[in-house]
């Protein structure tokens, strides 16, 4: 008695979680180093875009097993001969004399110096890039009890909605069948013609016999038919094919039509006539089979299967503030942008929904879109407090701090009239309690002393734990500043999710 266990509708069990985690743990240090190198190399905007190939040293992934070295003496049997004894041939690339069982299992071999590679998707890459860095205060992360249902790709299934159809796999299946069905149809037609021919030959024995049985190759069959055809009649138009593409069928068709023309229909006996009619009626069916083979059938259809995963929902807003007065050059703005980008990526990893607010200011502040924020230029002096007022306004209008996690970043070159600094300090004291964290970055050559504005923020940071400041001068510094803001293994709140790998 057989036990049959239908597991199609089972939810995805991540049975390999443990093994995968062990593997990642084993290669963790190497991958971390490679990820940090990769991130520092390219432009920051393309960090992890479209997946990244990460080298992993072989020493970490190999499983040694005892085996022989490759023997120089080559002795092997191959199928599909084209040669005679004594011929000289090239050495095949894939072959090897005494290949060991350990090959292909990551054992050290001739190409020992090369590393293994693992392919990390963008998400996995960023996960590792940000691994261990936690948000400063995520008390509100799960304050709302609502969850979102996410769908996750996992394998294929033979039934599903049409938008889940995987055309690649489906087409592969169809193409395979088309070849076979064409062959089957050709065989049937050939057999049909052969039978018709034999019936006619019963009345005209002087016509040559066409014996296809026992001749397997198409070439052999074609030879037989063509030699018979050539003895039958000389005036056959080689272009005439009766609508059949295949050479074999058109030759056979010619044979049948020739003999049909030679036999007087009134001589043919009743049962033979009936049989001929049956055979002729069957032909269109076979043609149809060949034609249908090109079409998609429902058995070819293969669908992607998605599994549902429940995840807690949390929202964040990131308020980007920047001084766009004349003293900020485009280069400074690009440096600031690098920091904005990394922080945004980090927030997007930790929150399900991240909104962006852009505020530019000179002496007055206004809310703009992203394009305008980074590339727009305005003239005039600088008053930082105007921007903080605008920020306060926006938060009160739109972002209830009980619902939203608010992060703000301010980029500046440090210019501000001294009388305004007091107002800045008082506004910051008002704004800070509403926010999760606030970052002030000054774009300035680190050899110079920090500006008075930076000094004001620095003094504030002593009394406001959410406020952090840094000086940066290049996109690479932005990564360093980010790392200093979010130390690895920073104090995580009790209910925060530790970012997991893989």
């Amino acid at each position: 008695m057989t036990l049959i266990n239908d597991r199609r509708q089972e939810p995805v069990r991540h049975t390999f979680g443990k093994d995968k985690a062990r593997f990642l743990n084993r290669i963790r240090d190497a991958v971390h180093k490679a990820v940090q190198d990769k991130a520092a190399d390219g432009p920051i905007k393309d960090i992890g875009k479209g997946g990244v190939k990460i080298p992993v040293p072989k020493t970490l992934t190999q499983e040694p097993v005892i085996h022989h070295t490759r023997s120089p003496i080559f002795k092997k049997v191959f199928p599909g001969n084209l040669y005679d004894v004594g011929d000289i041939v090239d050495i095949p690339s894939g072959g090897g004399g005494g290949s060991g069982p350990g090959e292909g299992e990551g054992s050290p071999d001739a190409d020992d110096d090369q590393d293994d590679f693992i392919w990390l998707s963008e998400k996995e890459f960023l996960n590792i890039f940000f691994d261990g860095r936690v948000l400063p205060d995520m008390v509100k992360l799960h304050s709302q009890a609502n969850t979102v249902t996410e769908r996750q790709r996992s394998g294929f299934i033979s039934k599903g909605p049409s938008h889940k159809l995987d055309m690649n796999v489906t087409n592969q299946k169809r193409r395979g069948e088309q070849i076979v069905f064409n062959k089957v149809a050709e065989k049937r037609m050939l057999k049909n013609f052969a039978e018709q021919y034999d019936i006619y030959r019963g009345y005209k024995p002087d016509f040559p016999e066409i014996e296809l049985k026992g001749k397997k190759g198409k070439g052999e069959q074609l030879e037989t038919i063509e030699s018979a055809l050539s003895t039958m009649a000389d005036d056959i138009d080689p272009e005439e094919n009766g609508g059949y593409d295949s050479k074999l069928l058109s030759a056979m068709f010619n044979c049948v039509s020739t003999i049909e023309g030679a036999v007087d229909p009134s001589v043919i006996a009743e049962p033979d006539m009936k049989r001929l009619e049956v055979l002729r009626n069957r032909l269109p069916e076979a043609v149809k089979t060949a034609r249908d083979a090109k079409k998609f059938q429902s058995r070819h259809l293969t669908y992607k299967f998605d599994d549902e995963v429940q995840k807690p929902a949390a929202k964040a807003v990131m308020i980007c503030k920047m001084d766009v007065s004349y003293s900020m050059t485009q280069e400074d703005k690009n440096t600031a942008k690098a920091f904005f980008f990394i922080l945004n990526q980090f927030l997007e990893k930790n929150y399900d929904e991240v909104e962006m607010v852009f505020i530019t200011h000179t002496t007055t502040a206004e809310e703009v879109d992203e394009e305008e924020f980074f590339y727009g230029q305005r003239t005039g002096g600088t008053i930082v407090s105007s921007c903080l007022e605008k920020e306060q306004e926006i938060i009160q209008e739109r972002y209830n701090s009980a619902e939203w996690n608010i992060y703000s970043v301010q980029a500046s070159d440090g210019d501000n009239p001294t009388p305004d600094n007091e107002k800045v300090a008082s506004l910051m004291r008002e704004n800070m309690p509403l926010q999760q964290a606030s970052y002030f970055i000054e774009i300035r050559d680190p050899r110079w002393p920090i500006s008075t504005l930076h000094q004001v923020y620095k003094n504030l940071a002593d009394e406001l734990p959410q406020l952090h400041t840094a000086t940066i001068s290049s996109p690479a510094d932005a990564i360093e500043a980010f790392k200093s803001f979010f130390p690895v293994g920073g104090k995580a709140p009790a209910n925060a999710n530790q970012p997991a790998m893989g």
Partner: protein
Amino acid sequence: MTYDMKLNYDTESQQPYFKTITELLDKYEDGWDVFVKAHEAKDYDIPVPRKEEFKDDPYLPDTWLALADKVISIIAHEKLGLVTNQNRIEIVRADQMLDAYVKPVPDGPPHWSYGKRRFQEQQQFDANKHLAYEIIINSNPALAYCMDTNSPVMQMLVFAHASYGHNAFYKNNYLFSEQTEPDIIMAVNQRLRDLVEECEEKFGIEEVEQVLDFCHAMRFMDTSINLNKKFTSNKDRAEKAKKARDDKFLNPPRKSVFNGKVAETNDNSPESRYPGQGRDNILSFIAENVDHIPQWKREIMKLSSATSQNFLPNIKTKVANEAMACITHYQTMDTLNAIGLINADMYAEFRKSHAGVLHQNPGYVIRKDPYTQEDVKVPTGQDMNIYALGFAIMEDVKRICEEPTEEDKRWFPNFAGKGDWVNTCNDILYSSSDETLVRNFMSPTVMRKFKFFMLEGDMRDEFLEVSAVHADDGFMKIREQLAADYRLSDVIPKVTLKDYQYETDRCLVLQHDVINDQELEPKSLQMILEMIHHQTKHPVVMESVNSKGKVVASYSSPPAYKHMDHSPAPLRQEL
């Protein structure tokens, strides 16, 4: 209706299995159309309603899958004469299939190498979207995984192929039936997993991982089952036992002064000190006899050894195993077609997959040179398709049984024209490994069909020479070489335990027998020796010994260690 259908209906319907199937299908409303209906609906969830009077019979299959399995089992058992273990069939999705790819047994212990392989399989799958139709594991009940995307016809093919073909081979082939223990393999693995998890809590993950790494690395130096064992029939075994009995009677052992109570011996070789230990099975020897290893490590080593040994005969019987499975599925589907259970469309679909599985690419092909426009012969680097080879050999055995030519009668006088191909094929497969199957039963017809040719040469030169082709004097040469390609002793180095110096520094001395001047790969060997050294905490030496008994190479861990001869120098008596 086409000419294929009901080809041998008249002869087939006289067979006893036909009656059994008729009795079974008569109890269903759809009768003989069940399979055709499922095919037309493209669905094996299709209901199979039973007739009113059989509604309550608990022994009748309820689903289409179970019914298909039942019909196939009747053909396999009654027509093809197979004896099988019980089957367990799991219909799985792609992700579950990928999981099944990675671990030999579903409940294995956690280990990073499985994680690595799961990553690789996933990447490969994402790249080419190709998965096997089925996987079967040698256990009792035999566990088979079948893809859910298989069409009804494919599912029937896969049942016949894996759950009856492979299953019968596992149960009856001499290597498997004598040297594996399918009944307990699942339980052994669950025990190993539990043990590993418990030890990880107690001793830390890293410590346990090193033991498992060590066990994995030792898997080809752990062949206590004799991989090169020849098939012996029951008669031979009985004769051998009788001879041993007679010898004991004719030359009874001398009575010992120790009165049989103490096994005192002056022989210090490992066999006499540790009787019952195979010299091949180094992992088990370490687990049981080497001193200073904690008990939990010994236990893990023993269980790992038992698991890996259960799968070793698979390496030796790839061709024979697939030959059994392919001929089973081919005969089953042919029979289903002949008795009219599947129609011509379904048969065509079967032939398509069958041809795909058995496709053999040639070793060299003719291509046009893009520059000179001349035809050149290019190597494709294609290996033998084991399915094609196995199936071709067995198909030809069948033909030789039924319609032998003069040549066949000369080559195979034992069974040419014997007629009873079912039993002949089964007997051949049950008593063969790949090597013996190819050497003894590959006929000239098969060699002509594949157009075999043989290349010889030195890889350091730029070329190879064709030394034999599929013509009269080449047949023996090709057959011999192809058999040698599947000879395991050339692939897995033969390593035995030479000495365990328990009286001095507990050094483990291993011996590698050099065959055909093949050297050991030094890097992985050194790593393995280091692992042994790390686990046993005592030195270890590996000596490569050639056929004349001369040591040609020696490796050790620690690297500079020189081992002493075991016995101390004789005491000099000075008068």
